[in-house]
């Protein structure tokens, strides 16, 4: 029932785009300019104009997707068209260059365009792969659900340590207080865990809560009688907490990857516009 933008309307824009590319290639092969093919022939101008207009239209998606009251097509349809028609630029612009590259503003514009398009490819990959991967990791829970579960466990832990020696309580409480998420974008992307814990008055790294788990297990091996029981349930709860924290961290990492390409795609698009303007201006001035 739910079809993604990739297969929107049976992949309508894929076929449109494919037909368009094939047509452009055929004309390219057929037309026989006086000089070698380049942007200056009639066909070169035509492709250049089409390409430039398409870039403007592709850029317009950023506005269109926020025109919420607009009745003209759905955002999904627009994204589908954006993705497939945007990809065809690769062919159109390349034909427009007539394969003439050099160290100049024209090639810079071309390169930037390619970067935008390739980042777009990664975007499509990310949009297709990561959401379901994240849902799987989270076992169909929302992040809020998991945070709630963790909070429940924290309460439980605080209760359990009240019967245990003070130093254990201090450690567990400080581990809870110093559990960290997110951080900078790079931390998210790399899944860095900056959680800390204070043990015997010293603050140490508590990556993946390992230090605390190890410490507790150590204590459990040495414990006797009732304390063994109490510690065992503490370790069990703490293990569950560790696991849930891991799920959240993985989710944050995956979502960072899922998003990262947009921080290239959009700024480079703006760069592309600047380069494109320079390219067009220079063509008219120096020609």
């Amino acid at each position: 029932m739910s079809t993604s933008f990739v297969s929107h309307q049976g992949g309508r824009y894929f076929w449109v785009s494919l037909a368009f590319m094939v047509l452009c290639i055929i004309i390219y092969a057929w037309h026989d300019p006086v000089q070698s093919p380049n942007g200056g022939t009639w066909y070169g101008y035509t492709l250049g104009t089409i390409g430039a207009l398409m870039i403007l239209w592709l850029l317009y998606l950023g506005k269109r997707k926020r025109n919420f009251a607009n009745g003209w097509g759905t955002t999904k349809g627009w994204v589908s068209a954006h993705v497939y028609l945007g990809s065809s630029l690769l062919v159109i612009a390349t034909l427009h260059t007539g394969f003439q590259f050099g160290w100049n503003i024209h090639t810079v514009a071309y390169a930037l365009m390619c970067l935008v398009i390739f980042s777009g490819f990664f975007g499509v990959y990310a949009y297709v792969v990561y959401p379901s991967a994240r849902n799987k990791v989270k076992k169909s829970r929302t992040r809020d659900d998991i945070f709630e579960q963790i909070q429940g466990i924290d309460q439980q832990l605080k209760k359990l340590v009240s019967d245990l020696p003070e130093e254990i309580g201090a450690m567990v409480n400080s581990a809870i207080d110093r559990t960290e998420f997110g951080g900078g974008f790079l931390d998210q992307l790399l899944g860095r865990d900056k959680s800390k814990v204070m043990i015997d008055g010293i603050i140490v790294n508590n990556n993946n809560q390992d230090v605390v788990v190890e410490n507790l297990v150590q204590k459990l091996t040495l414990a006797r009688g009732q304390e063994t029981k109490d510690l065992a349930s503490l370790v069990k709860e703490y293990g569950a907490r560790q696991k849930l924290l891991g799920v959240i961290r993985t989710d944050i990492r995956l979502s960072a990857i899922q998003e990262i390409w947009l921080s290239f795609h959009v700024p480079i698009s703006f760069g592309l516009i600047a380069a494109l303007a320079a390219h067009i201006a220079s063509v008219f001035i120096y020609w």
Partner: protein
Amino acid sequence: MYDIVVIGAGPGGLSAAARCAELEVSHALLESSPKIANTIQKYQKGKHVMAEPGILPLRSPVDFAAGKREEILDAWETGIAHHKVNIQYGAEAKSITGEVGNFSIGLVNGEVVQAKHIILGIGMQGNPRQLGVPGDQSDFIQYQLDDPDEYHDENIAVIGAGDAAIENAIALAKHNNVYIVNRKDEFARAKEGNLNLILAAIDSEEIGAFYSSSPTEVEILEGEKFRGNLVLSTNVGIEKLPVHRVIGRLGAIPPRGLVESFGIEFPSKDMSAIPALTSQYESNVTGIYVIGALGGYPLIKQAMNQGYEVVEYILGHDVKPADHGLIEDKFKALPYDNMEVDDVLTMMQERIPIFSSVNALLFRELILDSTVHVFNEGDVVFERDDYTNSFYTVLEGGIKTVITEDLIISSAVGAFTGEGSLLSGRRRSATVLAGDQCILIETPRRTMLKLIASIESVKRVLDETFIVRQIQTKFAPNTDIKELEPIASKAVINSYTPGQVIMKEGDEGDTFHLIRSGSVTVSNEVNGKELIRTYLPAGADIGEMALLGDTTRSATIKATVKTETVSIDKEAFEMLLSRSPGLREELQEKTKKRYQENVKLQGDDDSDGLLSFLMDQGLGEATSALMIDEDLCVGCDLCEQACAATHDGTSRMNRRAGPTHAHIHVPTSCRHCESPHCMKDCPPNAIQRMGGGGEVVIGDNCIGCGNCKQNCPYGVIEMAYQTKATSSFWQWMLFGIGLAPGKGEVLSHGAPNEIKKAVKCDLCIEQNHGPACVRACPTGAAMRLNPVDFAKLA
């Protein structure tokens, strides 16, 4: 002995007593609470009270205009003081004996008041259930909490386990030591949100809890730190809890039992029934009059007008009701210039049999709620597949019901139509066209439901008609209705609760069911597990194979929500077969198709339980449910932004909230139920079901009472101040200033004439091209589905 005793000092009672005082009639006003108008006292502080319906003039010696709760209560206090109304507080009536001219009213405090006539204006709120233990009259025991911030550093016991108790306990726990006393061992009656809050608060020891405990006594401590001991009987014995305050939240006792004990009859057992009254508000007990909410009029102004009028009637004055002008206006376009309003009303009741048994007062109210249309021949009254659900009766001329192109049924004066959608919540099953010189009365759903609940004969006629018309359209389009009546009379209407089994796989059975309202799932047991095969909405038929010889049920049919079916047994069915040539073959063809489908369905079983999950979420009664495919959702939040941007800056959905199963997430958002629970109890009738898409929409005349929020089982209604979308895309995009698209600001937070009104999803009915959330989703994750399409999700 007073001439008139008014019981209940709500708006109705106040107005009646003030009119007595104005006319110097000997009177008394008995009020059970310590202040006037208990229902209004219980509104939240500073609430802006609306004076709906705006077009109705006010007729009362005391003032009332839209305004703050406090101002209105002040005006009433001043009004009754000015007129020197003889009011007694703390005077709760508990019995009435005697007869007109000589009634005795027994009060809870033991006093007896004598009256010649009684006006009952005790409203519908009922009185709070008391603790019922020794000491429960002490002054530190209360049954209401106006402002939790009033109390600090007290030991407070809250008794009860419902939403009110939980909300009070949590609000009080901020500044006090709070204990909650629960008779059971869990909070089964609370809404999910409240349940989580209270459990968390108990867990973190912010609130102390006594489970399986009930109070047995309140010991009063004089001159000590605490004002009393609450004695509790618990699982582990007797406990004494020292307290400063006890708050009982044990619910209210509905007034019906009390009213019946006065000898006043209700026409049906249905809890929403209204006592039968004359057009002068007199009940079946001569000399006892009923006004206001108890008489079925749920708004303040109506109650006050009736208070005035009823006194006039008792004194034998002939006054026209205040709404007279309104009815006159309604009748303006009708060709009855030379007739009095009352005569037109009488004529209507005479002409239209289904209304003939309705008492005059109720009928008058029905007409006030209704619209009278004059149609030209051929005009469309409603169209097939429309989602409207009002009810039409024919006053003049006739109508044509177009069932199929060759099957058009004409009906004349007195006939009615539209009962199908009214009763089932489904789309219109036929188009109705106006005949020559046609005048129709259109009555809204809420009014009709009230009538059905109150008057047994209306219900019966509608049910019978529904059945016979259903049988005709389904099986015997060419047979005359008259011939089908004997069959229909053998049909039975059955009701099922959610999850109840209608028929079980493997059982023997030869009855056949038509689903009248609600919906069902069809499931098989495979390896001891229930696998849902499909979902069937109202209008579908089940069990027809049994009638053609195969009497072993091939699947289990279960109600997904509250469901009604019409069942026909084999004998009646044989009668139908004999009257309807070709029917047997037709049904055999259908059965064959169903067998074929069953074979096809063997493969796509609901192995991951998605359908069961959706049904457990109550989605069986949805017409349009928002869902998010988590395999496609990138969490960009465009859906919520779109909702906010198209609704003055406030989103009506909560993307993150709600349960998830496999890859399907059900966010909190209105599902536009087939029979919307929210519509049930809306005083100004502000919630409507729209035609085209079945959108359930809340109108501007909402008075902010919150009933709908309470009645919606899915928690999708918010009470909110009006906001305005104030973001600008270019400013935000280019300069990073202002609000992001889709964000809005509250227009005026709590300004004097602002009220929090009910808001929820309206399916973007004003945008004209479908829900903005779905349209804004870049990946196709957000969708709105009808349950019929759920199977395709798996």
